[in-house]
């Protein structure tokens, strides 16, 4: 088998130490956001101001790693200027690209900064080549991140029908809903990824110990109830246990994470341009370890895809990072659907 093209590795950075960890451990790209609701990880204590962003970009560029600024929420009517300012900042601090979801904002960026690389965020909900090619034709989008809803075969179909580079998620938290098309969080809390840049925000979470039991609520709504011997998880609202037709179960999704490591040869073979690691909210140590393992895997797959198999130490390394959570291939595997 001939040597395959190697997908680029795109790693998350919630702050400067994580950015350095990603760069030092073999990321091809790092992505990060500004410290406000212009990005979809609008969490307290996370993200960059223009000074730390500038330092991060220098650190990455000095080591031939590219940078992309996530401005991937929807500008809200009445505060458009903040998003425009984020684009201006991106151009000013010298990132290689911005990753956007909102067409109005793309138009602004494409007109004002034609040299700034444009990528389509997963929050743009583009699951088919017609949608992706619309963003290409209208704004010159060069790369698109696919929502975590397509099977491998469907991903291949998209790649065959567009010259826009296709990036897919490889590892990390898993949205079961189409990104950019989910208002569950605002239904429960008033804040959603599209309107606020966060899902199931921490400010709405309440942990209620009741003797041996633990109730976890989101804006008062009971998301799950844990017995004494169960580990209570963060109440992401699609990952709670609910009652449907008299049965109590994970009606939408188990609290599991995506890990597509074993699909690497197939992803490379169908022409995936880049693999994204989720987790800007994670620690530098987490980012370092995930990046290191995926770098090694991508290099080994690139050298000999036919004989590639995910090494046991990679699997245990990744499993350790998610504290006993389950893994899934998500929608890449049709049965998951």
């Amino acid at each position, binding site marked *: 088998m001939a040597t395959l093209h190697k997908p680029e590795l795109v790693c998350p950075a919630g702050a400067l130490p994580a950015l350095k960890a990603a760069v030092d451990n073999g990321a091809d790209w790092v992505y990060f956001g500004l410290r406000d609701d212009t990005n979809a990880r609008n969490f307290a204590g996370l993200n960059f101001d223009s000074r730390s962003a500038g330092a991060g970009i220098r650190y990455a560029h000095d080591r031939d790693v590219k940078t992309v600024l996530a401005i991937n929420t929807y500008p809200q*009517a009445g505060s458009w200027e903040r998003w425009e300012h984020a684009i201006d900042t991106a151009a000013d601090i010298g990132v290689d690209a911005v990753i956007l979801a909102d067409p109005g904002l793309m138009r602004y960026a494409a007109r004002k900064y034609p040299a700034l690389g444009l990528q389509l965020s997963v929050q743009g909900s583009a*699951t088919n080549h017609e949608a992706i090619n*619309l963003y290409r034709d209208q704004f010159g989008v060069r790369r698109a991140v696919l929502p975590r809803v397509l099977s491998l075969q469907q991903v291949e*179909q998209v790649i065959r029908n567009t010259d826009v580079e296709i990036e897919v998620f490889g590892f990390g938290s898993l949205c*079961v809903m189409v990104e950019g098309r989910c208002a569950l969080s*605002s239904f429960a809390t*008033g804040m959603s990824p599209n309107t606020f840049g966060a899902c199931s925000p921490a400010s709405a979470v309440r942990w209620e110990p009741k003797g041996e039991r633990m109730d976890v609520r989101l804006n008062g709504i009971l998301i799950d109830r844990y017995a004494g011997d169960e580990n209570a998880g963060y109440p992401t609202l699609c990952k709670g246990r609910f009652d*449907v037709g008299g049965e109590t179960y994970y009606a939408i999704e188990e609290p599991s994470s995506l890990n597509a490591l074993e699909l690497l040869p197939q992803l490379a073979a169908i022409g995936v341009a880049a693999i994204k690691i989720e987790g800007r909210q994670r620690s530098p140590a987490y980012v370092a370890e995930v990046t290191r393992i995926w770098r090694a895997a991508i290099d080994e797959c690139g050298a000999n895809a036919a004989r590639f198999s995910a090494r046991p130490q990679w699997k245990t390394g990744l499993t350790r990072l998610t504290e006993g959570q389950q893994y899934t291939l998500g929608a890449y595997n049709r049965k998951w*659907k």
Partner: protein
Amino acid sequence: MKLSLGPVLYYWTREALLGFYANLPHSRLATIYLGEVVCGRRREMRPADWLGLARDLAQTGVEVVLSTQALIESELDLRAMRHIAENGEFLVEANDMGAVRLLANRVRFVAGPHLNVYNPQTLAWLAGLGACRWVMPVELGRDALALLQRDRPAPVETEVFAYGRLPLAFSARCFTARHYNLSKDDCQYRCLDHPDGLPLATREGQSFLALNGLQTQSAQIYELSRALPQMHELGVDVVRLSAQSARMNGIIEAYHRALLGELSGSDLDAELAAHRTADYCDGYWHGKPGIEHLAA
């Protein structure tokens, strides 16, 4: 303001669906949106059946709009979307940017509620491509609407989802099939058993969501009749009612009379209460969590 009936979001038998449309008070509706928006596996109605129904309804004088599927995954989904976009006869509601590409600069179209129009700049872009109407995302409320209306391009009409279970999310996974431990590819069309979705409650019995195949809805019915005067002031053109399996004609009649000014306040509440099939919510309109009910 005019009344519209949104696409039926559930999977009903062909007979039930055709019966529903035949018995509507057509003269009360300015517009009827038709088509399968949720799941490409729902094939009780074939493309030719939808077109036939569209022609029948158009005969009653109502404006018929064909709605495209919101989540496009497969080649079959794409083919269905192309078929609608290129129908050449009826206006189309685009619910995915892929549909927008097929319609843009060719024919005018409706920018559906799933296109994520959150600001005037995106609305202006769509208007430039040929959008003649846009439907506000359900999670936006009156304050956001006021700002969007202020800068709305002149020829574009505004439509607001005002009644029905809220379409909140789409997934590749079918939650109805999951409930029955079936895979999506072998779902046995269980959605047919749940003409208003499958109710989901919290472990302490609070009504929360409704599972409708790939779509997740609110368990509560979003009900904005009390907000009609505000919508009028904000220059809303079309008020959308979303179909449910029972008592829909009574709801249409109540909204029709409210728009004429014949019903308001507690009289309107009483009229709607006679046709109530679930709890109401209206938080989104007031800028609050969608599940809340303020009704003021």
